[in-house]
């Protein structure tokens, strides 16, 4: 009994570094954000920061809309890809997983800069088009370019969780469904899709959350015209509009939006298996 108690105490001891880390770098900043959000420059309690939020309505809707579009396209592209991947032999699976992960090992900024040079008015695509004698198109600095950047950067986060759920589905379960009269369409709809739902949910979360809060992608590919929530917040802290109080309030609202989204998602996936939450 004594020994049991001491080992328990010992284990408790090991958690202290992380608890301290959490307190300094997670809990304290959160408290600061809340404090800033509810105070004015002179340090007085106020709700002004929130009442001003209405003027940023366009930015909010644009952020959510673009993130939603990127998430849906990622799902439409990622699910079939994950399905195809899960069916291949182990060798091919490893090679393809490698190819999907490879871009993630390169610097995020670098990848996005690379897209700039591809999409620019004098960039790769337009060079090829003029070489072929076709009229140039302008892609850079459009919302399309921003969505493209989101899809490129976050697609792996959709494919990987779905893939890892799909490969775990036992082939005998699929055979059992066929045996009971289901054709391949019904097998997919009634067996594979429901069983892969936890992977889909975590994929959606892992694409939507970073998309809605990104500022690098919109800055570099959207050219400032298509300001997103991330840009707006960044401006309040580092940019011309310096106002950390307003920035904190916006961050807080964004956090609430994300938490609500995730709660809705988890309600969907209510079952034995819970979606992996970021």
């Amino acid at each position, binding site marked *: 009994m004594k020994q049991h108690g001491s080992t328990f105490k010992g284990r408790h001891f090991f958690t202290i570094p992380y608890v301290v880390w959490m307190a300094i770098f997670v809990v304290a900043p959160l408290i600061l954000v809340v404090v800033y959000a509810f105070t004015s420059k002179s340090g007085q309690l106020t709700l002004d920061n929130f009442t001003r939020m209405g003027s940023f309505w366009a930015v909010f809707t644009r952020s959510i809309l673009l993130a939603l579009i990127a998430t849906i396209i990622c799902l439409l592209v990622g699910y079939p890809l994950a399905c195809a991947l899960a069916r291949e032999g182990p060798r091919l699976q490893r090679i393809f997983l490698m190819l999907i992960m490879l871009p993630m090992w390169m610097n995020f900024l670098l990848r996005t800069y690379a897209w700039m040079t591809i999409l620019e008015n004098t960039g790769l695509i337009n060079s090829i088009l003029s070489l072929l004698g076709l009229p140039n198109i302008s892609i850079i600095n459009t919302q399309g370019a921003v969505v493209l950047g989101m899809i490129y950067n976050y697609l792996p986060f959709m494919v990987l969780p779905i893939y890892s759920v799909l490969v775990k589905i*036992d082939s*005998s*379960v699929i*055979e*059992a*469904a*066929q*045996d*009971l*009269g*289901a*054709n391949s369409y*019904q097998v997919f709809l*009634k*067996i594979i899709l*429901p*069983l892969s*739902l936890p992977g889909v949910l975590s994929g959606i979360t892992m694409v939507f959350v970073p998309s809605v809060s990104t500022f690098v992608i919109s800055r570099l590919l959207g050219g400032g015209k298509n300001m997103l929530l991330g840009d707006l917040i960044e401006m309040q802290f580092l940019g011309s509009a310096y106002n950390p109080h307003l920035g904190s309030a916006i961050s807080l609202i964004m956090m609430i939006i994300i938490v609500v989204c995730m709660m809705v998602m988890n309600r969907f996936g209510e*079952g*034995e298996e819970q979606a992996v939450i970021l």
Partner: protein
Amino acid sequence: MSKELIRLVNCTMAYDNETVLNSINLCVKDKEFLTLLGPSGCGKTTTLRIIGGFQKPTSGDVLFGGVRINDVPPHKRKINTVFQKYALFTHMNVFENVAFGLRIAKRPEKEIRERVSQALALVALKGFEKRSPSSLSGGQQQRVAIARAIVNRPQVLLLDEPLGALDLKLRKEMQHELKQIQQQVGITFIYVTHDQEEALTMSDTIVVMNQGNILQIGTPTEIYNEPKNAFVADFIGESNIIRGKMIRDKLVRFSNCDFECLDTGFAPNEDVDVVVRPEDVKIVEPSLGQLKGVVTSIIFKGVHYEMLVDTEDFQWMIHSTIPAPEGREIGMLLTPDDIHIMHIDKDNMPEGAEEAEE
């Protein structure tokens, strides 16, 4: 039990030059309980999967009611399967699992409700409708799998070692239940197992397989009492297999002693395998026995004692309810009925048979 339902004609299955099934022919009659029995890798599961439609034979035909069904996919066959690992749908409750086939067939809701509850009653799982499969024990999950298959009223039910994952006691109970269910619903069962006792308990017909060949087809009594070769004899129950010589019809010589037997039709002086069941050897006073030996070990097995008895050239296994202590010299008596003579089958030598002939 007379009409032919399924027939395999010269079915061969080969992967990359490795033959898994070697041109087998098999006939399954309507409403019979047929068991494919053999050691792992003998091709029994492959045979079942060919009947179920999950694999296509490399060559040969599968006939169902006289019609060739090689190219009919599993979901269009009037056959349902109970899988080794149950393969229940974990995202549905017990009711929905059982109802799956009926929902696919778009049966009316009322009928689905009735048939599912009938099927669950048949496997003694009434009241479990709302439970999730993962909350059930192995035996209960297996019953759900059985209910899920029979609710569709298939003409044939395929069972791939369905009791393999259960403990001994539960397995014995389920054996009887399965047999009962089969008689109640009156459909053909094709059962795969490597457990000879299971096969003997439940089957109308046993098909013994080894290395992709069918060695013998017969009723449990035929297979046990008249095994066609040493492999079958050794696989079905325990056997003493000793090399002998057929002197003439109804007379065989082994261990330097002539024995009367009932077998005929062998060439004079042909080398043969002599098979004697351990329970058929009678222990008598040394002076009264045809053979003499010394008991080297004795184990209590519950219903009987298992003794190993060394003679000059062979170690006999004897099952008897009367124990003889270790070290005692005993006599052994064999009547003609106890001796089974078999042609030597070099391809299907059971393990241990070679040692035994030393």
